[in-house]
C-alpha cells in the first residue's frame, strides 16, 4: 500500500478521560475485532491495567478503515498511558506517529496531564486532533471545553468531534478526522533501512520482539539486520504488524509503517528502546536521533521476602526492564534484608506498578524500602556525590553542602479547593510561583516543591483534599541547597539500614515519631521487649517500646500425647520464618511496608 494511505497516530489524554474506551470503539468501528471478542479496555491486556482502569504500557495495533472518499486506509493506533509517571511511554510512542488525538473530558475540561501530553505531542511536531468525549454525561459542557482548548492550548477546536466513546456516538467523525487532518508518513522505501525501536518485550517462544516505526527503506523476512547501538546482527524471522490480539507475520515492513520484528533475539541486553535498526548489508549512514534517556527520579530497595528467591527477582527485573526501559536496577545488600536491588523509578505510581507486576507476573513476595530521591552532596574536600540510598549518606561532618532535587509542579483544580491545595503545598515546603484562572471556576497553580515531599503520598493527599478534582503534573527543576539529615531507626539498639532515610531537618521530628509509632503497631510482641528508637547522628529523637509478650504457654494435659506439644513448637518456629531476624528481634514484612504509608 502506498504511504499516502497510512495514518500513524496515538491518543493522548489526562488519566480517565476515556482514551482506552475510544481505542475500543475505534477497534470496533474498523471491525478489527469481532464484536463477540470485544472486551473493555482491549488494549490494556495486563490484569493490573484493567483492575486499576489505567493504561501503563503503550500498545500499537493496525486497523483498516474505508473512508467516505471510498479509499481504504491503514491506521496504526498507539494507545498511551495518561499518568505523569508514564510520560516516557507517551513520548516514545509519539516518535512513531504523525498525529495525536487529544481526548478531553466534556465535563472536566483540561487537566494537568492534558497539557503535559499535548505539549509533548507539539514538541514532536505532531498534528493534534482534539476530541471532546463523554458528551453523554449530564454535566457535559462541550462548548466550554472547546473554548478552553482554544484558549489554553491555542489550537482550533470549535469543529472538534463531540463524542461519547462509551455510547459509541460520533466515532466516525473521529475516523474521518484522522484521514483528513493527520498527514501521511513520508519516507523512501528504496533507501537503506532505518527503523526506530519504540518498544520491546520478551516472548518465551520467539525471544525478544521489537516494535518499530520504519522511517526509511524496507525490511523483509530473511534480511540481516543490525541494531546500531549494540552492533548486534540478527536474521529476521518475522516482520509484520499487530492485530488487536495477536501478531500477523506479513513478511515485510516498509517506510511509513509501524510493526514488529522478531529475529530470534535471545539476549535482552542486545535491544535498546530508541535504537535504530538498519540492514547489515546495506546500512544507513547514521542512526535516528533516538530517545533522550529517561532518568529515574525515585529509588527504593526491592528485596525478596524469601532470600532464596534473589535469582528469581533478578530474572524478573531483567524481563520487566525489556518491557519498561525506564526501570533501572543494580544489586545492593542490606544488613537487615540481605541481597536485593536498588531500583530507580519515574515516580511513585511507577514504583507501585513495578512492585505489583513483580509480585503478580513473577509470583514474588517482596519487601520494599522507603522511596528516596537522589541527593547531591558536596564534600568538604570538594568532591561531589549523588546519593540514592540513605545508607550511603556521608557523615555530616564531611559535608559542605547538601542539595535536593526540586520540581516545578502544576496543579489544576476547581477554584473552591485553592485554600486546601495551598495549605498542602505549604506543608510540603512548597514555594508558590503563580496562579491563573483558566475560566471562572478553574485555576492552575504553579509551585516549586522538593521532589522528596511528593514521592510518598502527595498525589493521594491532593486528591483527598480536593474531593478527587485536582490534577497534578511536574517536571524536574534541578537541585537546591537544603538542610538535610539522615534519620536512622534502631531496633533493640541496632540501626536497621533498610529503614534509614534522608529528610529535611524541620520534618525530622514529626516523621521520626510517626515511624516509631507505626513500627510499634506492626512489630508483634515477642519474647524480649523491643525498644524502637529514631536517631539523627547519635541523638535519639523518638522512642517507642514493643513490650515483651507476657503469655505463651500450653498449660494443658494431653494424656501423654507429647507429639501435640512438639508440633505446636515446630509450627511456631515455622511461623517465624516469615519474619526477618534482626539480632533477637523478629520483624515481619508488614513492618517494613508500614513505614511507607505513614498517613493511612
Amino acid at each position, binding site marked *: 500500500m502506498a504511504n499516502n494511505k497510512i495514518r500513524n497516530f496515538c491518543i493522548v489524554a489526562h488519566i480517565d478521560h476515556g482514551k482506552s474506551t475510544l481505542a475500543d470503539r475505534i477497534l470496533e468501528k474498523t471491525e478489527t475485532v469481532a464484536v463477540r471478542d470485544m472486551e473493555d479496555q482491549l488494549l490494556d491486556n495486563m490484569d493490573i491495567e484493567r483492575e486499576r482502569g489505567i493504561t501503563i504500557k503503550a500498545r500499537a495495533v493496525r486497523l483498516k478503515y474505508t473512508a467516505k472518499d471510498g479509499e481504504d486506509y491503514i491506521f496504526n493506533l498507539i494507545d498511551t498511558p495518561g499518568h505523569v509517571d508514564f510520560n516516557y511511554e507517551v513520548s516514545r510512542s509519539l516518535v512513531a506517529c504523525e498525529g495525536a488525538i487529544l481526548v478531553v473530558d466534556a465535563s472536566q475540561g483540561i487537566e494537568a496531564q492534558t497539557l503535559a501530553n499535548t505539549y509533548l505531542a507539539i514538541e514532536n511536531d505532531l498534528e493534534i486532533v482534539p476530541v471532546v468525549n463523554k458528551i453523554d454525561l449530564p454535566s457535559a459542557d462541550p462548548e466550554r471545553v472547546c473554548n478552553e482548548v482554544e484558549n489554553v492550548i491555542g489550537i482550533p477546536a470549535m469543529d472538534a468531534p463531540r463524542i461519547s466513546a462509551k455510547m459509541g456516538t460520533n466515532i466516525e467523525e473521529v475516523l474521518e478526522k484522522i484521514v483528513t487532518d493527520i498527514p501521511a508518513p513520508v519516507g523512501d522505501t528504496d533507501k537503506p533501512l532505518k527503523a526506530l525501536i519504540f518498544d520491546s518485550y520478551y516472548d518465551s517462544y520467539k525471544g525478544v520482539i521489537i516494535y518499530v516505526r520504519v522511517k526509511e527503506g524496507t525490511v523483509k523476512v530473511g534480511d540481516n539486520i543490525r541494531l546500531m547501538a549494540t552492533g548486534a546482527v540478527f536474521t529476521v524471522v518475522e516482520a509484520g504488524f499487530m492485530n488487536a490480539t495477536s501478531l500477523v507475520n506479513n513478511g515485510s515492513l516498509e517506510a511509513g509503517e509501524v510493526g514488529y520484528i522478531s529475529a530470534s533475539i535471545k539476549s535482552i541486553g542486545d535491544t535498546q528502546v530508541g535504537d535504530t535498526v538498519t540492514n547489515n548489508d546495506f546500512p544507513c549512514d547514521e542512526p535516528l536521533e533516538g530517545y533522550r534517556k529517561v532518568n529515574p527520579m525515585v529509588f527504593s530497595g526491592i528485596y525478596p521476602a524469601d532470600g532464596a528467591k534473589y535469582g528469581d527477582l533478578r530474572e524478573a527485573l531483567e524481563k520487566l526492564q525489556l518491557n519498561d526501559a525506564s526501570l533501572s536496577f543494580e544489586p545492593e545488600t542490606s544488613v537487615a534484608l540481605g541481597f536485593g536491588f536498588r531500583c530507580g523509578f519515574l515516580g511513585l505510581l511507577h514504583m507501585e506498578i513495578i512492585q505489583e507486576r513483580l509480585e503478580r507476573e513473577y509470583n514474588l513476595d517482596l519487601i520494599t524500602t522507603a522511596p528516596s530521591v537522589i541527593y547531591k552532596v558536596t564534600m568538604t574536600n570538594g568532591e561531589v556525590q549523588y546519593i540514592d540510598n540513605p545508607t550511603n549518606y556521608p557523615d555530616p561532618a564531611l559535608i559542605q553542602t547538601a542539595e535536593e532535587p526540586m520540581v516545578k509542579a502544576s496543579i489544576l483544580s476547581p477554584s473552591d479547593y485553592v485554600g486546601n491545595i495551598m495549605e498542602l503545598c505549604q506543608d510540603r515546603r512548597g514555594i508558590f510561583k503563580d496562579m491563573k484562572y483558566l475560566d471562572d471556576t478553574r485555576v492552575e497553580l504553579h509551585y516549586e516543591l522538593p521532589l522528596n515531599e511528593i514521592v510518598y503520598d502527595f498525589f493521594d493527599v491532593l486528591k483527598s483534599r480536593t474531593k478527587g478534582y485536582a490534577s497534578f503534573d511536574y517536571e524536574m527543576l534541578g537541585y537546591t541547597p537544603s538542610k538535610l539529615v539522615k534519620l536512622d531507626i534502631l531496633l533493640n539498639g541496632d540501626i536497621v539500614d533498610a529503614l534509614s532515610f534522608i529528610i529535611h531537618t524541620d520534618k525530622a521530628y514529626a516523621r521520626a515519631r510517626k515511624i516509631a509509632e507505626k513500627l510499634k503497631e506492626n512489630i508483634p510482641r515477642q*519474647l524480649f521487649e523491643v525498644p524502637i528508637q529514631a536517631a539523627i547522628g547519635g541523638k535519639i529523637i523518638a522512642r517507642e517500646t514493643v513490650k515483651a509478650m*507476657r*503469655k*505463651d504457654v500450653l498449660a494443658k*494435659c494431653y494424656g*501423654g500425647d*507429647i507429639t501435640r506439644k512438639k508440633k505446636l513448637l515446630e509450627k*511456631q518456629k515455622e511461623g517465624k520464618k516469615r519474619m526477618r531476624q534482626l539480632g533477637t528481634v523478629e520483624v515481619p514484612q508488614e513492618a517494613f511496608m508500614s513505614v511507607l504509608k505513614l498517613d493511612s
Partner: protein
Amino acid sequence: MNTLGIYIHVPFCGKKCSYCDFYSVCYNKMQADCYCEAVLRNIRHYADKNTLVDTVYFGGGTPTLLTAEQITAFIDEIRKCFNLSEDAEITIEANPNTLKPEKLYNLRKSGINRLSIGVQSMNNDELKFLGRTHTSERAGKAVNDAIDAGFENISCDLMIALPNQSADSLAYSINTLTDMQIQHISAYILKIEENTPFNCKKILDIMPDDDKTADLYLQMTDMLNKKGFLQYEVSNFSKAGFESRHNCRYWKCLDYIGIGTSAHSCYKGKRFAVEPDLQAFINSPVQPVVITDDSPCGFEEFAMLRLRLAEGLNLNDVELHRKSIEKKIPPLIKAGYIKYNGENISLTEKGFVMSNSVIEYIIFS
C-alpha cells in the same frame, strides 16, 4: 528391672463439656462392658512379668462412670500380667458427681490410691459457663467424702483464664480448695479448641487477653506457693512428695503404655497412638495403633519436656548443644525468664507463662 507406667483411657462421658476436644462418647452400659473386655484383652497382650509397673492411671472421659468392680478387674489383671509394685501410684480421674461415698470406698478398696477430681472451679457461675454438671458444694463434698474413704493423695483440677474471671474469684477457688486436705492441684489455662462449642465469636470475644491471663497465672502460682503447693511443672503444683509420678514419666521420657481409644504410648523406643474409634478398639483382638515417632526423646523433645519441669534442663545431659544454649542464656536471665546455676537451666514463674517462646528460643533458634 524395667519400670513402666500404664495409662488406661475410658472414653465415656455423661455429658461433654463445652471446652473439651478429647475423644469421648456418651456412656452406654453395653458398650462400656464390651470396652472393658477389650481393655483386659490388651492388658494381657502387653503382659510382661519382668516389668515393674509403678504407676497406673485411669484417664478419660470419665473413668468413674465405670463400676468399682470393673476398675478392680483392670487392676487385678495388671497385677496378674505385670510385676505391680507394692507402692505403685494408682490414679483415677473423677467427676465430682460420680463420687458417692460407697463408690469411693470401693475404689479405694480396689487399689486406687490417688484421685484426680475435675473440680475446675469453686465458683458456680464459672462451672455453669464451662458446662460442668456439678456445683462447688458437690465438689467440696466429694473431696471430703474421699478423705473419709481413706484417700490421702487427692488432686483437684483448676481452670484459669475463664471469661470474666476476676482475681477475687480465682482467689476464692484457690483458697477453698487449698483449705481442704488435698495434696495436688493441676491448673490449666482455658484454651478454645477448634471443634468445640466454645469456638464461636460470642465466647472468643469475651476471653481474657494475654496480659490478663498472665496476671491470673502469676497470681495463682504465688498463692499456691504460699499455701505450700510447689510448682513442679508448667501446670502442676503439689505438697512436697506428692508430685504425680505417672505424669512425671511423660516429662522424663520414661516408658508408658496407653490402652484404649486415642491413648498414647511411649514404649520400647517408639511413640504410638490408638485411633479414636470406639468400635475398632472393641472389635480388634489387639488395639490398632499408629506409630507417631520411631525415635523419640531426641534433643529437642528431651529438652522441651525437661524445661517444662521446675527442676529444669541439666546441660550435662545435652553436652552437644551446650555451647549454642549457653549463648542464649544472658538475655533470658536479663528478661527474668530463667535461672541458671552453671549447669542447670530452669524456668522462673515468669518463664513458665512464656514457656513456649522461651523453650523454642532455647532449643531451636
